[in-house]
């Protein structure tokens, strides 16, 4: 292939990715080692890294939109949350009569808010396959509508970012409303099972961990494939000089829309995997701050490199997990300082640092 001649640095990055995935893959095995073994991985680390993997998928999806297509979405958290809500609705339906009121169909919150019957938009979510369809379809549809409106009107850059931020903010306010029939502020919790497997057991956690890891690898390969094709080069071209691409005869609206929708769907999948692992989904996931944080993961790791997004998601979240208990009063300074330092001194992120070493 003349067109895809990966540089040595790029090959190095792929090696990093393969190593990372391999290490993650044996986490549950290392967990079985006796606690005093140096290679022992604690239960907590296994469960929390399952969550980080979901964040990494979100970061990958954002990198596809931002790093390659130049669409800086400050509302990607909304797609993540919508995927999570779709999964949450499925999990709520699966509780069935095991809720604290014993109602055969209605979830607890509907019972004590006095609902008589299930709202129409809850229908179908008792089927796993339907719910999984919705996990990608709802974020995809939202991205399609919003993207079509914005890209067609040639809203780019800062304007686009602020519109996407307004979108997630509006969704957050809307989802906080109890009248939405989606649990309001409390959202969904107290899930019981998924695919016949009781949640809150070690086995379930390991299954979800591997499911997330597989999704991460699949997303990575998907992004790798996309960016390796001519389509990926069109995206890069759009990112750097959109109007020039138009003069070459490419309808950039449809190209951007395709990437944006694909990215939103990936974010939705990440959200769906995230919810059963953390055991809760509520409108807080729509908060604009969450979406900005996701952008920061990508920036810290290095945008436009895929592997950077993954590294960023793991390192920032790992740091956060560690610092919120090691320095509960000071962690915001460390994290805030990190963001400042990365934007100032590492415009290419941690990956840029690695590449610099490689040279």
């Amino acid at each position: 292939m003349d067109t895809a001649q990966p540089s040595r640095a790029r090959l190095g990055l792929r090696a990093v990715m393969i190593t990372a995935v391999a290490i993650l893959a044996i986490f549950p095995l290392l967990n079985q080692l006796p606690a005093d073994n140096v290679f022992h991985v604690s239960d907590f680390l296994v469960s929390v890294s399952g969550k980080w993997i979901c964040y990494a998928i979100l970061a990958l999806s954002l990198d596809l939109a931002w790093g390659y297509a130049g669409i800086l979405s400050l509302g990607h958290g909304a797609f993540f949350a919508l995927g999570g809500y779709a999964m949450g609705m499925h999990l709520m339906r699966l509780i069935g009569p095991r809720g604290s009121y014993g109602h055969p169909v209605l979830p607890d919150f509907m019972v004590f808010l006095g609902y008589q019957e299930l709202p129409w938009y809850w229908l179908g979510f008792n089927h796993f396959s339907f719910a999984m369809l919705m996990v990608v379809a709802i974020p995809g549809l939202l991205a399609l509508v919003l993207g079509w409106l914005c890209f067609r009107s040639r809203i780019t850059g800062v304007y686009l970012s602020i519109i996407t931020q307004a979108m997630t903010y509006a969704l957050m306010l809307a989802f906080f409303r109890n009248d939405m029939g989606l649990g309001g502020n409390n959202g969904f919790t107290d899930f019981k099972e998924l695919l016949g497997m009781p949640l809150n057991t070690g086995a379930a956690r390991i299954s979800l961990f591997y499911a997330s890891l597989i999704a991460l690898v699949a997303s990575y390969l998907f992004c790798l494939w996309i960016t390796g094709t001519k389509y990926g080069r069109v995206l890069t071209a759009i990112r750097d000089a959109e109007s020039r691409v138009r003069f070459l005869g490419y309808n950039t609206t449809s190209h951007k829309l395709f990437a944006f929708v694909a990215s939103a769907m990936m974010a939705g999948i990440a959200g769906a995997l995230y919810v059963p692992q953390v055991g809760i989904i509520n409108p807080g996931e729509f908060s604009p701050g969450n979406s900005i944080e996701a952008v920061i993961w990508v920036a810290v790791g290095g945008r436009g490199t895929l592997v950077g997004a993954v590294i960023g998601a793991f390192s920032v979240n790992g740091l956060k997990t560690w610092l919120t208990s090691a320095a509960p009063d000071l962690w915001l300074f460390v994290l805030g300082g990190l963001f400042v330092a990365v934007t100032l001194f590492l415009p290419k992120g941690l990956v840029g640092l690695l590449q610099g070493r490689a040279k």
Partner: protein
Amino acid sequence: MRGRRLYLDGVSVVFDGFRALNNLALVVEPGEMRAVIGPNGAGKTTMMDVITGKTRPTAGIVTFGDLDLTRMDEAAIANLGIGRKFQKPTVFDALTVFENLELALKAPRGPIACLRWVLAGGGRTRIEEVTTEIGLTDRAHDRAGILSHGQKQWLEIGMMLMQDPDLMLVDEPVAGMTDAETEHTAKLLARIAGKHSVVVVEHDLDFVRALGCKVTVLHEGTLLSEGSIDHVQNDPRVVEVYLGR
């Protein structure tokens, strides 16, 4: 002989009260080469913007063959067979020379088509031909961002060639080129002109003379004079505009 006739009549463009084009008329026949000259602010670039769909005219008719260009967007116009080389070369810095040309190669343009795209032998040959033509063979796999200004100009011309358009709009192709390069460009354009219509916007009158084609002079958004280079150079109005009052 293929191609369609470019026809502009009564075209006006107003930006916030400023008339960039004023009742402009222009006809370019299939296969014709035309040079457009005029002082700064005469409306040359705006005219190209109108033809390629970047700017919507406030009034007037713009057709290509029997198609109304004012109703189409840039991509559709480009796909009709109108290529453009910008005044300031805009190539895709993050991609290699080869990839830049590949993007421009005439092929289905939709996202799905691009995903499934495989560069076949014909396409590859064509890219190699053009790479040779623009003299960038040994830089084919370098990133376009590191090319010199002149090389970017060449690459941009190459990308226009890849599109294989019926009509080429060439904005200041020789700015920043050496004399030898300029000469080479003139030859290249002259050779193309047989198969395609070409509109060249240029300041360099020597270059225009070398092209040896009909010349249109714009001034303050309107057509000032039209004819052979000698004709327009002797036109008193043109002289006045160029030499000042």
